């Protein structure tokens, strides 16, 4: 028999505890006796080295013997009856009484099969247990009804902790939940006042290594009545049939990993019990019970707790699923609200960020930004605009899919490290790649997000004797290190909600584009109608007007000798009025056509333009004797030469017209300040304009003087000038002192 190879004690520390073979410790806890039996003969193959303490028989005396050396024949028959049962654990515990000398000792016999062996564990029990079933039945029933009444997972956990503490009497009972990465968090706790609270604390996945979790999944319950125990070795260490160490995965007496013992000691815990909470065959969490002094829990109570754990597992799953469903329903309602808001707003982005709920609620993010046509519309906590700009650039270059999400942006985009506070987690939803239009959602680093339940700043005292020491506080630090630069993970339904929003946005954007196109069509039509109107005005209105004009002239020609002077004057007035009417119609036509004619932009020497205009106006200039001043040559600018000519023509003609001074002058020039655009001006020493009319004079047909004063005018000139300047991207304004003169300024972009 070569046992040495497999029993070399495995040296464990934090670096390799995930490899420790904790299912084959080769020893047990001393509060019971463990026997490995060969079926069907029930020959004792291995036995724990503590039989003498219980039965006064040395292990060697039992080895290779039939079980009858320990149990009476009727009890062996009872056991064999039980063994025939299909589902072995259901029969546990089998009550045995063993006569030792004059005493009869009572034991709870717990059997299971492992590696072809029958494992029988014997735990001493009290003799009176007849009514225990009913006692615990009621307690469990009561507990179950309370648990079923809980509103949500947290409420349920709280009730569960309370009830387990009531049934077991442990100092502290906690409900511990694993996340996707097996990091754990205490989500409920029952404890006396004097103990430090662990509620809300986080623990790294390494605290409960993979193989330990494996055992938790296999066994609903694990009890360590006294962590200060002396392990009891198995004799022999290996199973003589296969020369392997005995697999104690499912043995209730299985010895505890030294690391776990140390962990318990660090926490000041002597006795512990844990009950698994499973969801879909996967470990969901634990009911963790701690006691400061040794504490043994009899099998019945353990069974009650186990039952509670199993029932809770079902409830917990239901509750969690319904919470999940509720959040999904909630997201649906957020989604439909967002669509409603988007449709109601002229700019769909306002609908996404200006209301409650908004973009943030859709995926439970702390920050979001809509990047649309190079503008950024943020909501909540977002990185700076510059950081967003860079991020968008990176996204557009590196990501092809409609949606990208990560809980650790810094891993793929190192620049995100400095934005960990707001953007450790990212969902990037692409609306249109070519336009770099995105919706981005951000989540901060999870360390900044966790709920600090209890008081994590009050660490449990740790006796320092070298090596790494674990305490809840320390574990929190460890956990923190493992989740740095990470946000809470995005849930699949949140990602889906984001993706669905994309369709909604595209729908709304397309519809808005459609509406715009429709508007354009209507605008086009109304422009055409306006055009038609202008032509009707110019032709049809002018026809009767010409008649009046001509007939008035005929009257003067034919009857000039008969009609007296006042009569002639009236006819002259009539002719003047027809001319004015024609001017008005022409101006209206001209103005209405102005915006529709394409600009013919070219480099234009303004000196040429101005001189052409002055030539055209030379008659009036000579007549009025106005002095034209051009202090320095005008620049060459990029503009439509015809239209800019019209601007100068209108301004200069006005300047000539509205002047009552004996020495009239007009100055045409430009300012280079304020840069960058050149400001042109036409200045006069004319009659000036009251400040209250500064804006009105640009309105069409708005005149400041009666038709008989200053040579009349239609009141369209300045309106036309303004329109031309605006079409060139510039603006026009004036300064004036009433009675002293005016200056009209304009810029061209």
């Amino acid at each position, binding site marked *: 028999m070569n046992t040495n190879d497999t029993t070399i004690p495995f040296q464990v520390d934090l670096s390799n505890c995930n490899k420790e073979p904790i299912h084959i410790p080769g020893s047990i806890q001393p509060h019971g006796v463990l026997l490995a039996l060969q079926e069907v003969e029930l020959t004792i193959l291995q036995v724990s080295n503590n039989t003498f303490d219980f039965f006064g028989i040395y292990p060697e005396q039992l080895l290779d013997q039939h079980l009858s050396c320990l149990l009476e024949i009727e009890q062996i028959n009872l056991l064999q009856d039980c063994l025939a049962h299909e589902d072995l654990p259901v029969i546990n515990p089998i009550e045995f009484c063993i006569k030792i000398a004059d005493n009869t000792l009572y034991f709870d016999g717990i059997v299971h099969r492992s590696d072809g062996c029958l494992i029988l564990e014997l735990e001493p029990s009290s003799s009176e247990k007849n009514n225990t079933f009913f006692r615990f039945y009621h307690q469990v029933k009561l507990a179950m009804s309370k648990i079923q009444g809980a509103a949500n997972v947290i409420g349920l956990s709280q009730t569960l902790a309370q009830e387990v503490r009531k049934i077991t009497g442990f100092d502290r009972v906690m409900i511990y939940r694993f996340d996707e990465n097996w990091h754990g968090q205490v989500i409920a706790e029952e404890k006396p006042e004097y103990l430090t609270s662990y509620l809300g604390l986080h623990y790294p996945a390494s605290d409960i290594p993979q193989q330990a979790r494996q055992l938790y999944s296999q066994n609903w319950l694990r009890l360590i009545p006294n962590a200060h125990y002396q392990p009891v070795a198995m004799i022999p260490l290996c199973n003589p049939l296969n020369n392997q160490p005995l697999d104690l995965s499912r043995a209730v007496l299985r010895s505890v990993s030294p690391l776990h013992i140390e962990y318990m000691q660090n926490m000041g815990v002597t006795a512990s019990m844990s009950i698994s909470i499973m969801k879909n065959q996967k470990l969901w969490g634990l009911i963790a019970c701690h006691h400061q002094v040794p504490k043994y829990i009899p099998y019945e109570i353990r069974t009650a707790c186990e039952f509670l754990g199993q029932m809770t597992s079902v409830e917990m799953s239901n509750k969690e699923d319904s919470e999940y469903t509720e959040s999904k329903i909630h997201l649906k309602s957020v989604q439909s609200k967002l669509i409603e808001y988007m449709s109601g707003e002229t700019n769909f982005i306002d609908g996404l960020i200006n209301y409650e709920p908004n973009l943030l609620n859709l995926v439970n993010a702390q920050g979001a930004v809509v990047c649309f046509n190079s503008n950024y519309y943020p909501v909540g906590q977002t990185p700076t605009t510059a950081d967003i700009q860079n991020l968008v650039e990176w996204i557009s270059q590196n990501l092809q899919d409609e949606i990208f999400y990560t809980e650790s942006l810094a891993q793929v985009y190192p620049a995100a490290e400095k934005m960990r506070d707001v953007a450790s987690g990212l969902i990037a939803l692409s609306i249109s790649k070519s336009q770099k239009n995105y919706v981005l959602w951000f989540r901060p680093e999870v360390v900044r997000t966790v709920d600090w339940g209890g008081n994590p700043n009050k660490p449990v005292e740790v006796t320092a004797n070298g090596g790494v020491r674990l305490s809840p506080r320390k574990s929190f630090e460890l956990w923190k290190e493992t989740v740095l630069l990470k946000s809470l993970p995005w849930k699949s339904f949140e990602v889906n909600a984001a993706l669905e929003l994309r369709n909604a946005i595209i729908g709304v954007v397309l519809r808005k584009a459609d509406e715009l196109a429709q508007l354009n069509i209507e605008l086009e039509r109304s422009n055409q109608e306006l055009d038609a109107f202008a032509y009707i005005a110019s032709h049809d209105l002018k026809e009767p007007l010409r008649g009046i004009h001509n007939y008035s002239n005929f009257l003067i020609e034919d009857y000039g000798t008969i009609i007296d002077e006042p009569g002639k004057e009236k006819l002259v*007035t009539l002719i003047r*009025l027809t001319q004015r009417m024609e001017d008005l119609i022409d101006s209206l036509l001209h103005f209405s056509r102005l915006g529709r004619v394409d600009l013919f932009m070219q480099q234009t020497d303004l000196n040429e333009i101005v001189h052409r205009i002055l030539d055209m106006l030379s008659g009036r200039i000579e007549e009025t004797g106005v002095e034209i001043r051009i202090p320095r040559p005008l620049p060459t600018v990029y503009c439509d030469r015809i239209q800019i000519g019209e601007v100068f023509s209108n301004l200069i003609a006005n300047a000539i017209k509205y002047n009552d001074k004996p020495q009239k002058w007009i100055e045409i020039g430009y300012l280079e300040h304020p840069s960058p655009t050149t400001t042109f001006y036409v200045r006069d020493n004319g009659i000036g304009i*009251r400040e*209250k*009319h500064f804006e009105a004079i640009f309105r069409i047909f*708005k*005149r*400041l*003087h*009666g*038709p*008989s*004063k200053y040579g009349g005018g239609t009141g369209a000139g300045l309106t036309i000038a303004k329109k031309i300047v605006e079409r060139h991207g510039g603006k026009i304004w004036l300064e004036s002192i009433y009675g002293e003169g005016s200056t009209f300024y304009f810029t061209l972009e």
Partner: protein
Amino acid sequence: MIGNIAQPLLIIEDSDEDYEALRRIMHKEVVLNPIFRCHDGDDALDFLYHKGIYNNNQAVPRPAIILLDLNLPGTDGREILAQLKQDKDLKYIPVIVLTTSCNPKDIEICYRYCVASYIVKPIDINRLVKTIHSFLTYWLDIVILPDAVSK
């Protein structure tokens, strides 16, 4: 003969032709009231506040009634109306709007400013004569106007 020699009538009208038509009809009716004409809004305000060329109080009496055109060069009729009705000394003077505009917005604004009447100028000369005749009979003969001179 119609009207009262002590109650001046102010006509604010920019169109010489329209004013001429008005003046002709009033001449036929032999209106006794002194008639003053302002050509535009600024002119009218100067008249009412005795400013500019009207700063001689004796020659420029306060009108007992105002006939107002709406579309005027410079300060237009609506602005004059707004100004008049804000002024506690001037707001009691009845203002009759006489305009070519039949825009409902103008009509509403004018009545909001409590004009005494809003009359649209008819194009047809016969109807214009009738309208002006009715106006003169009603406002200068039947209605008792506030005593302007004593103010």
